[in-house]
């Protein structure tokens, strides 16, 4: 099954629990094994033989086995819970690591796809628990009822074996086709969700583009596609139910057809006939249907969910070892060329640049020209296809990745704030910062008002209630507090007013270290030591002390 490797470690680690489930479930199948025999005895040797007390005594034994069975099911719950909870924990950990790792690596999938991933873990948990519990117990019940029936009436073997083989073969074929249709329906459902999501996000845009007809036509197409696929899958699903039902009910018919001969021949007593019917009707039939239906439906569903989870759960390989970067040093590009796609124009074309330690540099240029790319290449987050990026004279790829990230901090335009306290949002890069240090940062970047409004450092922050400017202030504070020697602000102050922006940039200058500002406003240039311009012709160095016009 695709994606089943996700669960393998849990199965291996918790095999004792699984064995426990199987063990207690086999004990729980005792009533199914003995029911027909006990009822047959109660009738033949008790009630029908005129020994009524013995009959009641045997019924009491039957009741006792039922209670004992219930006790065994109760006992099976403990290992069952242990296994299911472990499976869920493992899936959550794997998916969070893999999904977040994938998003952070800047790979596929928008936030929507990834956000939904975690929710699917819950679906997987429910199916796993159903599969393990129901299938184990129902499967053992089928076995127990079949053994009991054959022991009571060996002739049943002649009827049951061919029936099981034929039904099994028919089901295998049907299930294969059904599974194909079911997967088509799932794929169409994903397409449908994507289209509806896009249109709902763009209701305003559909109206503004005079495109209600186009949007409706697109939606109708995916809606119809999905409904048709579901209908086609349902037809085969119905056929499967018919085969399962037929296989479950034929034994009763066969038993009744054979019964007159067996009774007349003396191989079967009236009580045994009743017992055999009990085995077939209350043991074999319901249990077999449960196994066949659960295995078919939920097995396929679990496979699909696991496969989807597995697609986003590749944990990134550990970084290659490297040398410890020095505390400070110059940043340099040496003939660095960078492009995003094989066929696209290069964003950086053999660019050369040296930024000295402690320098304050502003980068200007038209939007979309690649200033943000320059920022990611300069901080070693993207590798150039040729040439090199150096820190303190050594290619950045030669350093320990984690240590390099402590030296360099980049703040992107979209500030990251998470649900937690103000403090938790400020200290990720400086876990040991004391209150005095944090207060200094708050005053330096201008967070006083926000902190006061949230009731101090330990007040909870809800990201959605903050303005874009406030979120940027928190992101600035976080890096201001960090030990990073090189700080790159990639339009990180674009939602601040000019005064707040100046305050933030000056705060980073006073903090010491190298400061690179990808500028949103030309006024940033006036404050810096040096101005760089990135345009279609490449990267230019403008020695400047005033924010003069750049064109």
């Amino acid at each position, binding site marked *: 099954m695709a994606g089943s490797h996700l669960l393998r470690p849990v199965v291996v680690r918790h095999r004792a629990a699984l064995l426990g489930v199987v063990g207690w479930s086999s004990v729980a199948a005792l009533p199914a094994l003995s029911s027909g025999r006990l009822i047959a005895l109660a009738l033949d040797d008790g009630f029908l033989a005129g020994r009524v007390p013995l009959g009641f005594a045997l019924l009491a034994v039957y009741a006792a086995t039922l209670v004992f069975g219930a006790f065994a099911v109760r006992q099976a719950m403990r290992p069952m819970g242990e296994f299911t909870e472990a499976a869920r924990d493992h899936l959550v950990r794997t998916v969070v690591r893999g999904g977040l790792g994938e998003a952070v690596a800047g790979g596929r999938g928008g936030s929507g796809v990834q956000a939904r*991933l975690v929710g699917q873990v819950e679906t997987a948990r429910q199916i796993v628990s159903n599969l393990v519990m129901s299938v184990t117990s129902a499967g053992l019940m089928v076995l127990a009822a079949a053994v009991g029936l054959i022991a009571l009436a060996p002739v049943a073997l002649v009827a049951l074996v061919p029936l099981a083989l034929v039904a099994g073969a028919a089901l295998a074929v049907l299930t294969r086709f059904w599974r194909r249709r079911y997967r088509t329906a799932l794929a169409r459902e994903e397409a449908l969700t994507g289209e509806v999501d896009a249109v709902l996000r763009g209701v305003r845009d559909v109206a503004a*583009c005079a495109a209600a007809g186009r949007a409706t036509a697109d939606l109708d197409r995916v809606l119809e596609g999905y409904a048709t696929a579901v209908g086609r899958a349902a037809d085969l699903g*119905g056929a499967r139910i018919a085969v399962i039902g037929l296989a479950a009910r034929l034994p009763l018919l066969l038993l009744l057809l054979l019964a007159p001969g067996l009774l007349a021949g003396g191989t079967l007593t009236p009580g045994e006939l009743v017992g055999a019917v009990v085995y077939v009707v209350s043991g074999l039939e319901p249990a077999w249907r449960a196994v066949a239906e659960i295995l078919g439906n939920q097995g396929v569903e679990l496979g699909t969910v696991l496969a989807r989870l597995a697609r986003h759960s590749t944990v990134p390989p550990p970084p290659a070892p490297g040398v410890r970067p020095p505390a400070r040093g110059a940043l340099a590009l040496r003939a660095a060329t960078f492009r995003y796609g094989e066929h696209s124009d290069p964003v950086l074309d053999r660019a050369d640049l040296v930024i000295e330690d402690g320098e304050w540099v502003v980068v200007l240029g038209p939007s979309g020209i690649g200033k943000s790319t320059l920022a990611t290449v300069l901080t070693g987050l993207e590798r150039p296809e040729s040439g090199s990026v150096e820190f303190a004279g050594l290619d950045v790829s030669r350093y320990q990745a984690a240590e390099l990230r402590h030296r360099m901090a980049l703040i992107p335009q*979209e500030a*990251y704030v998470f649900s937690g306290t103000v403090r938790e949002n400020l200290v990720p890069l400086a876990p040991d910062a004391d209150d005095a240090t944090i207060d200094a940062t708050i005053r330096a970047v201008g967070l006083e008002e926000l902190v006061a409004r949230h009731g101090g450092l330990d007040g909870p922050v809800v990201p959605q209630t903050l303005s874009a400017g406030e979120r940027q202030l928190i992101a600035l504070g976080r890096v201001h507090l960090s030990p990073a020697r090189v700080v790159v602000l990639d339009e990180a102050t674009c939602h601040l007013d000019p005064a707040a922006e100046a305050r933030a940039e000056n705060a980073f200058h006073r903090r010491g270290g190298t400061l690179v500002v990808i500028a949103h406003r030309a006024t940033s240039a006036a404050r810096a030591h040096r101005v760089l311009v990135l345009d279609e012709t490449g990267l230019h160095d403008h020695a400047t002390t005033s924010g003069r016009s750049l064109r």
Partner: protein
Amino acid sequence: MRFDGRLLLTAGKASGWYGVGIAVAAVVEAGAALTLPAAVARAVDGVIAGAPVSVWPIVVALALVTVAEAAAVVFERRAEARGAWRLRRTVLRHLLALDVAATRRWTTGELLGRVLQSTTAAASVTSAAIGLVVSLLTSLGGVVALVVVDVWLGVAVLAAAPVVLWLFRWLTRQVSANTGDYQDAFADLVTRFGDAVSGARTIRANGTLDRETARVLDVVPRLSAAGTRFWRIQRTAVWRSGLVMPTLQVAVLAVACARLVAGHLSVGELLAVQAYFGYATGLFRQNVLLSRVARAHGSAERVAEVLAEPLPPSGSASLPAGGGAVELTDVGVVRGGRVLLDRITLRVRAGQTVAIVGGTGSGKSTLAEVAGGLSHPDTGRVLLDGADLAALRVSELRAAVTYAFERPALLGATVADAIGYSDRPASSARVTAALRAAVAEDFVRRLPLGADTPLGDLRLSGGELQRLGLARALWRDARLVVLDDATSNVDVVTEERITTALGAAMRTRTRLVVAHRIATARAADLVIWLEGGRVRATAPHADLAVDPDYLAVFTAPDLAAPDLAEPEPAEPEPAGFDRVRSV
């Protein structure tokens, strides 16, 4: 909850004839199932007595049960799929016809849930209701059959009923209380994960992936604790029902055996008693089916809420010839109890370029929306070339106005498709020209497949996205062009190039431009200065520029809470890089 029968009927009708199919299949299945034990009893008694036995009644009953069961599965799934399809079509058409402002009552996530999940659940009402009725009848049939076979058996079952009912209610309460804890913990996990995914770029730049992963996974112990509690409840539940149900079953069996000894019951009837007892206990499980109907009803309500949102006024009038003169008289807009626009009266002559300026929350975007007919005012009138927008045919109104936004949502398959997205799509020549006018040609050429790059593969910066949105607005022959902060993320140099290109492309059209930059106001023929939803002044920039309050508008800090009237998208933007990468 108050049940609304009409609501359920509407939802049920969406399933069409499949609903009738479910009903027929369910009744046949129940009828055959109820006759089967009696037929088996007669056959067994016959066999034991050595009399000739006809198995045909049993064959027919078994065949009917099997066929009806399979048919019910097919009909149920098809009814649900068809019902959901119809409901979804209706809701989506309604949403697209609504006033744009009216759709903002819900977040995108809420609407997505209503369109996809609620419709499916509402469409399941047919099978849920039929299931409830038929199951109730089958269970009652079981009880009646027991009474018919022997009245003491019926008494035994009914006597035990209170205990069993109490048991199931206790179980339901326990489980639902614990489910709440579990779901809270899970929701926390989902929020933390979502937060972290939205901050992917920062996490990458800071190298804090491990820390963030640990922060998200902090919830796991809480989740495990709630899960473990669930299993403990489950153990108790299994044990309690494991004591009660078998006791009842064997008690019924014992009564039957006693009656057998007394000669009131045959061996075959003893078997039938076992089967009918199984049906009768179905009586205790009706709450499961009832909750299915209740859930379908709740979902139908959520769908109906969207459908109850009234459509905006529209008429059948055509637009007279003209150059896009706009006139607002006493226009007022109130949303969620907040006055966004207050008695706005103004006039824009055909061909004029007008800048709309003002601080955050002053009503600029609302005015832009109302002036172009994207949403309708609560009071007052908006005229385009003398025609009341509320009386115009919608298609005519939409064709006459074009919009570009601060955060355009691109729709369609590829970049070119998204630019030409319209009921009357653009030719490729027009798309190319529009891309050039919006100064987007260069970066689009650098995309992996150029203008044919699928939208799903794009990672655009804010400025790039805005320029595509602008290109989408530019190629259409609209007499009124509304640019709502459409170049705010574009740098000054590029914006200047765009302004020049726009001037050339749209010399004859009327333009309303919501702007933060002073240069835009300077270049306009007229400035509408808004403050708190009212017009503070309408005059050329040169006349206003002597007022320090006016100049302060252009340096106003962006630290206020987000404007409630113009909510940010519910989901964070994808962690993006400046340039596009292929997937």
